[in-house]
């Protein structure tokens, strides 16, 4: 049996999630024993054409040219995976969605003649997506688990519950309850191993909404903790403001 062929695409993103693939270094050779990284512009000089078995798409879609490339990627990949929060929900690029397009462009580019950007969306706004690997950046463990499970033909364990669950498994003292720190853990999908709270930093919500997230109640609690409503909005719009769950949080107070 030939090795499954994997393609990695980049849209509007910081390349941090692709870097996490390269950061799998200690086991990268084992991984290359099992799959063929056929198309990975960041890591290979020469790349092979499709079709591919698995396509990992990094980045939000922010212009027409990306929509075209995304549609092509969908056609040439058997499984299409959103790699990281930008591809899942728009991620950090989506913070621009609440300001007029030209104002944002003007801040970054000198010559606006060639700029035709669109609202930043996750890739599932344009094409069907088979799996979501959340996080800013993606969790290496989860990425690996996903690849392994896919090769074995079993369903990968992508945690649907909140970061709090993993945080409690790590036996952390809860920052939100005990220190009244603003923590998005209760509404954010687990899978990062409660990375931030385990190091004493409240969760920023980079992985987007957990299943059954009660963002409205959390937003009200943040207000009760003394946070200004503008800041509450910023918290909920930082990584996944385009999701219906987090937009409820942003609009609650």
């Amino acid at each position, binding site marked *: 049996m030939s090795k499954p062929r994997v393609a990695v695409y980049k849209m509007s993103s910081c390349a941090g999630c692709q870097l996490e693939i390269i950061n799998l270094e200690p086991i990268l050779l084992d991984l290359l024993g099992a799959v063929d990284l056929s198309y990975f512009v960041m890591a290979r000089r020469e790349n092979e054409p499709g079709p591919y078995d698995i396509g990992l798409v990094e980045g939000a879609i922010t212009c027409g040219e990306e929509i075209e490339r995304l549609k092509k990627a969908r056609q040439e990949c058997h499984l299409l995976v959103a790699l990281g929060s930008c591809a899942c929900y728009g991620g950090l690029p989506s913070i621009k969605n609440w300001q007029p397009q030209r104002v944002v462009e003007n801040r970054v580019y000198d010559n606006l003649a060639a700029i035709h950007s669109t609202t930043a969306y996750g890739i599932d706004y344009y094409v069907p997506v088979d799996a979501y690997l959340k996080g800013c950046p993606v969790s290496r463990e989860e990425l690996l688990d996903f690849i392994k499970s896919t090769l074995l033909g079993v369903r990968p364990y992508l945690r649907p519950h909140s970061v709090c669950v993993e945080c409690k*498994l790590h036996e952390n003292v809860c920052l939100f309850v005990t220190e009244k720190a603003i923590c998005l853990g209760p509404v954010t999908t687990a899978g990062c191993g409660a990375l931030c709270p385990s190091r004493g930093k409240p969760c920023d919500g980079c992985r987007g909404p957990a299943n059954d997230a*009660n963002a409205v109640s959390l937003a*009200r609690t943040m207000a009760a903790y003394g946070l200004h409503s503008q800041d509450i909005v910023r918290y909920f719009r930082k990584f996944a403001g385009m999701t219906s769950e987090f937009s409820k949080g942003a609009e609650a107070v």
Partner: protein
Amino acid sequence: MLKIAKDKLPQLLQAWAAGARVFVPQEKDGTRVFLPWDGQGKLTLDEGNTLEPPKDLFFPRTETMYRYQVQGQEAGVTEVPPFDAKMVLVGVRSCDARSFAIMDDVFLTKGYVDEFYRRRRENTRVVALACTEAAPTCFCTTFGIDPGRAEGVDVQMWPLADGYLLEVVTEAGQELLEQGTGLLTDAGKEEIPAAAKPGLVVDIDGVTAKLQRMFEHPYWTAVSRKCLGCGACTYLCPTCHCFDIQGENRGNSGYKFRCWDSCMFSEYTRMAGGHNPRPSKKERLRNRFLHKLQYFPERYGKFACVGCGRCLDRCPVNVDITRVIREVKEVTL
């Protein structure tokens, strides 16, 4: 009745620590927790109950159950060595002492004995400490618990201005106090201090019967609206005992472990195929209250709440079991 001076208590703990692991409330990360006594820590016996209940000493948050390995066509299982250390738990309040009886019901009765729990429980001596002051969230007397005297313990202590009174309750307790010869003096005319009188009292008469008729009531939707599903209430509850069993596999070997779970999480009831009989916070919160106030009394004849107040104190959105009890009684059916 015996007495120990406050400055001698560390020596008594030291004496016990020679033959057992001694756990006593101490300061950690700005909170009070049961920690092993190493002679260095800051005791918090006079500052009210611990933030976390002592249940993890009998029922650890994460516990390896067995290991396995595969070699070629052979597979084998290695048992973990059974827990056989002796433990002494010092400074257990009456509410938490009752919680041990509730945990015993779950893990040791009805024809099923959980060996992991049994080993720890049977190897442990409990030295209780009476409360002379109650926190605003304490409501133990609601469940017939006496803050001045704990049930099912080996030694009972009472705080005095300059030390503690100690009374032997069981033979094992007698042995413990014998180890303190030279440190303990006769209490003489010293009086047992008056027990705390929690100001928070709820009328729980008839709550179970009422709840039996409220499963479908819209009240649960209202009460669950605020809940974040953070699970703080169940992790801090001395009587919550649900666990999950999972495996950790690496190459050709791995282990199975159990770890605390919580009915406040959607994963808890999600089936392999994706169906979830408790799909929203409404069903989950309802389960937590019904378990404490209806299912447990039906099965074991006692409430599974001890009125320690931890959940109402720590819930970030103030979901309060005492208010739930009151409101349930007021609901018209």
